[in-house]
Every structure is written in structure tokens, then in C-alpha cells.
């Protein structure tokens, strides 16, 4: 396979996050998490349960970014009321975005500034507080920047490791990885984010420059390339329209061939 793009590296990295998830609901917000969940289902984790992002579990998912109304095979009915039951039951694994994310994995999508009088209102906490205290949560950051990776978030929506360790009753709190367009991060024994791997063509210095807090890079490797099988699935089966390159643009040129 030729011309492997950054987006395709990210897709494989996202798929790896679900490899050992078991038979749970994959909650994937964003194009690359959606591709990753489907890819994991077709390769390493055939038991993974996919949804159409609306009210249905899909044994055969609809076209990427579309709902059951556009195709696929329904295997279960999961309206929002049941989603919250599944969250509480813990049979779910989320990968979603963040407006801000700090060194301990505290996540914010609610607002910027003071909550009483925000300088910039975002969407609200949504279901993130509940997700993070009930089941594994990963984050996907399509554009790695110091605006997203901040020392301290303005509002804690998704609960980070520092808070989880300080509180009681958070025995199901489980932060996994943070995947961005530059790197895969995970959490060290101290609960802080660190670099697990940088994507091919990216340097540790570049990741650090785009992160608003110190990142441990000891042990950082290079993110793996997708296999030929994975590339074929991504390009021909899961995302033939190339939606992945709207989220992580493909640079002009030959891509990462031969690396």
C-alpha cells in the first residue's frame, strides 16, 4: 500500500484503543474515532458493539457519518434512555473530543472562562461527567494545540486522574489514551499525561511545543503504521468517501510510503 496519510495512522491508533475493550458499546464521537471503532470491529475486536449514533445498535453499520435510515443492519434498539442505563452498567467505552484537556486528563466541553459569566459558552457538560466515572474514556483531539492541551481546564466535565484519586466512589473511573493528529498519549503512574508514541513524521519537540504543560517523553516510540489489510478496510470499506481527510487533512505529496 502506498501514500499512507496521517489520518490513516490515526485511524489505526484509534482502533487499537478498542482492541481489548471486550463486548461493549463503542461510543465514538468524531470521524476518526468512528473509523477506529469500525476497524477494530473488523479486525481485533469482532465483539465490539457499534451504534448508528442515533437509536440503534448495528450488526452491520450504516455508511460512515450516516444513520440506520441510510443502510446497515439493526441488532438492537438503544434510545437515549437506554444509553444512560448502559453507561451506569459500565458496558461502554467512549472516545470523544475536548475543548480543553489538562495534564491529568480533566476534560472541558462546557464553556471557557467563569461558569457564572463565561467568556465563551460551549455546548455544556453533556454526558461526560457520567461517562468518566462509569467506564473507560479516551479522547480524540483532531488538532493538537496549546489551546486544547492546557495546564488547567476552566470547567471539569470529564473527570481527570487527580480528582478521581482524591474522591471516594470512583472505582469505575478509567482513562485510557488520548489520540491526536500528532501523537498517542497515555497516563503515567502519577496520573499525568505522557507521550506513548509520536506519529511518523512528527517529533517529540513538536508535540511538546503544541502542549500547554510538560509531557514526559521517556519511552516514547513511533506510532505504528496501519497494515495493508487495515488500509484496504479504511479506504475501500469504511471510508471510501475520504471523510477522514476532512478531519486530519492529507498533505500534498507522497505520504508516508516506505517508512
Amino acid at each position, binding site marked *: 500500500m502506498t501514500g499512507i496519510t496521517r489520518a490513516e495512522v490515526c485511524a489505526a491508533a484509534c482502533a487499537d484503543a478498542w482492541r481489548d475493550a471486550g463486548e461493549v458499546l463503542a461510543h465514538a464521537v468524531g470521524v476518526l474515532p468512528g473509523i477506529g471503532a469500525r476497524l477494530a470491529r473488523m479486525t481485533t475486536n469482532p465483539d465490539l458493539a457499534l451504534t448508528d449514533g*442515533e437509536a440503534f445498535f448495528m450488526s452491520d453499520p450504516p455508511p460512515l457519518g450516516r444513520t440506520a435510515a441510510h443502510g446497515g443492519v439493526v441488532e438492537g434498539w438503544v434510545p437515549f434512555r437506554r444509553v444512560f442505563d448502559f*453507561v451506569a452498567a459500565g458496558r461502554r467505552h467512549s472516545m470523544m473530543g475536548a475543548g480543553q484537556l489538562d495534564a491529568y486528563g480533566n476534560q472541558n466541553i462546557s464553556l471557557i472562562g467563569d461558569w457564572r*459569566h463565561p467568556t465563551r459558552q460551549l455546548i455544556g457538560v*453533556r454526558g461526560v461527567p*457520567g461517562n468518566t466515572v462509569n467506564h473507560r474514556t479516551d479522547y480524540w483531539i483532531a488538532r493538537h494545540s496549546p489551546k486544547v492541551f492546557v495546564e488547567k481546564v476552566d470547567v471539569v466535565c470529564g473527570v481527570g486522574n487527580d480528582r478521581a484519586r482524591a474522591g471516594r466512589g470512583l472505582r469505575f473511573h478509567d482513562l485510557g489514551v488520548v489520540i491526536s493528529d500528532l501523537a498517542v498519549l497515555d497516563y503515567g503512574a502519577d496520573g499525568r499525561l505522557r507521550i506513548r508514541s509520536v506519529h511518523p513524521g512528527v517529533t517529540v519537540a513538536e508535540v511538546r511545543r503544541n502542549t500547554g504543560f510538560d509531557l514526559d517523553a521517556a519511552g516514547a516510540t513511533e506510532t505504528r503504521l496501519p497494515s495493508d489489510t487495515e488500509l484496504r478496510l479504511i479506504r475501500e470499506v469504511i471510508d471510501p468517501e475520504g471523510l477522514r481527510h476532512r478531519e486530519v487533512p492529507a498533505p500534498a505529496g507522497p505520504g508516508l510510503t516506505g517508512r
Partner: protein
Amino acid sequence: MGDKSMPLDDFAATIESGMTVGIGGWGSRRKPMALVRALLRSDVRDLTVVSFGGPDVGLLCAAGKVRRLVYGFVSLDSIALDPHFRAVRERGAVETAEYDEGMLVTGLRAAAQRLSFLPTRAGLGSDVLTMNPGLVTIASPYTGEEYVAMRALPLDVALVHVNRADAAGNAQYLGPDPYFDDLFAMAADRCYVSTERIVSPADLPAGGPAQSLLISRIFVTAVIETPGGAHFTSCEPDHGRDEPFQAHYAAAARDPDAWRLFRRTFLDGGEPDYHKAVAEFHAGRGGPDGEGAGER
């Protein structure tokens, strides 16, 4: 069974200033927009609005009807943020109680069961507790484990929109998701159901499976027939979201002059005027486009 049908024109007078109003639907999906538009035309004010918010929240905020907003999010789905919601928040113009979505469900469930709270894990460790200073945690009397004691969210009235209902108040949804409309109805002292069509009791089971009969008449105060009453939000399978019109709404909401024009064109008249103006909007664009079904 009594006849609870009510003309839309009689609805707004039933709502008093200062009331707590729960609004069904989710985001920009199956919202009781005709009822909301009726409230916009009334002189009701100082409402506490409880909603999985969409343009219902945006419109009521823009019209200055809201004193306090209880929500987990406010979104137009295909457009991430409602510009009016953003504007009132950034002006500090409304009091807020922002909860995790699951906590909101728990609060409604507590109210429906006439409890003062229910325990949940959601919210622990997060700033939802910071942003709601009265909200406390409790220790399990059995294990000592800590939970959030989510306070009940009792409603004075609930407003929901469904596909079909009979005049007695049995309400049927025919789309993929009931959202939490039955819970809103049960958490409220009074529930107003607007519907695409009032049908005979025999036509309800004929129109869909028994499981689609979502809200029982024992929780319903009045039924209001409002064809297109969820517009511009989706009301599957009767119609999808009107994406071009929603985009027009969002664009207008970002600009005061454009908003004045939008209000004059679409909101200052009655419900028939609204639908006439929407038809003219689409005619001016070269006809309505029937997308929407997949763009929920």
C-alpha cells in the same frame, strides 16, 4: 374518556409567569415548537426552563422569557451551538443549573416518583458540583460508597410534541427514539401534548405497535393539534429536520438586525402565519428540499 383537545390559541393562557416548564424532545428533535412559539407571543415571563435543549431554549431566551435554565446541553445537532443560548450565557442574562445529561434524567425520575432526590454516580469529581453549589453527595448506608444526591426536578408543566394522539391524551411516537417525553409528563403537575394529528382511539393501535403509545392520558392535561408543530426540528417519520431553515435561524440569531427581521417575518404572527412564511422562505430558495431525514 373525556375530550381534552384544546385550540392552540387557548394554550398560552394556561402558563403563568414564574412557572417551571419542562420541554420534551432532544436537541433539535421533536420539540414542541408550536407551543414554544405560542409562549413567545404571550406576556409570560420569568420561566424556569428544564430541557435537553435545542432551539426551544434559544427562542425562549431570545424573547426574554427565561429567568433560570436547567439543562445538560443546548445544541441544534447539525449546528453545534444555538447562538441565542450562547449570547444570553455570555451576557450573564440567565441563571443556570447545568447538569450531566444522566443527572437531568435522574432528577426527572425522582420528581416523577415524588422523591426529593435519587442517587447517581454521574457528577462525582466534576465541576457540575461546583456549578450547582446546593448539590450534595451522600454515603451509601450499605457500603459507604459516595454518590451524588441528585435533587428532584419537579415541573409545573411539561410540553411535548408527538406524532399522534387521541383526544383523551394518549400520545404516540412513531420515530426511532421516545427521548424522555413520558418522564417529563410524569414529573409535571400538568402536561400539554401537541401532536401532528389527533386521531380516533382506534387509529392509535392501528398506526403503530403498542410500544409506541408513549404517554398515558392519566398524565395529560390537554391535547393540541399542531400539524408541523415541531418545525423546524425533526419529527420522524412525519418529517425530518428542516436544515435550510435551521441554518437560516442560526444565521439570523447571530446578528441583531437579521434577528429583528427573522422575528418580524416568522414569529410575530400566529402559527398559520409562521407556516406560510416558512413556505415562502422555501419557495424563495427554489422549493423546499426534502433532505433532513438523514440529517438528524
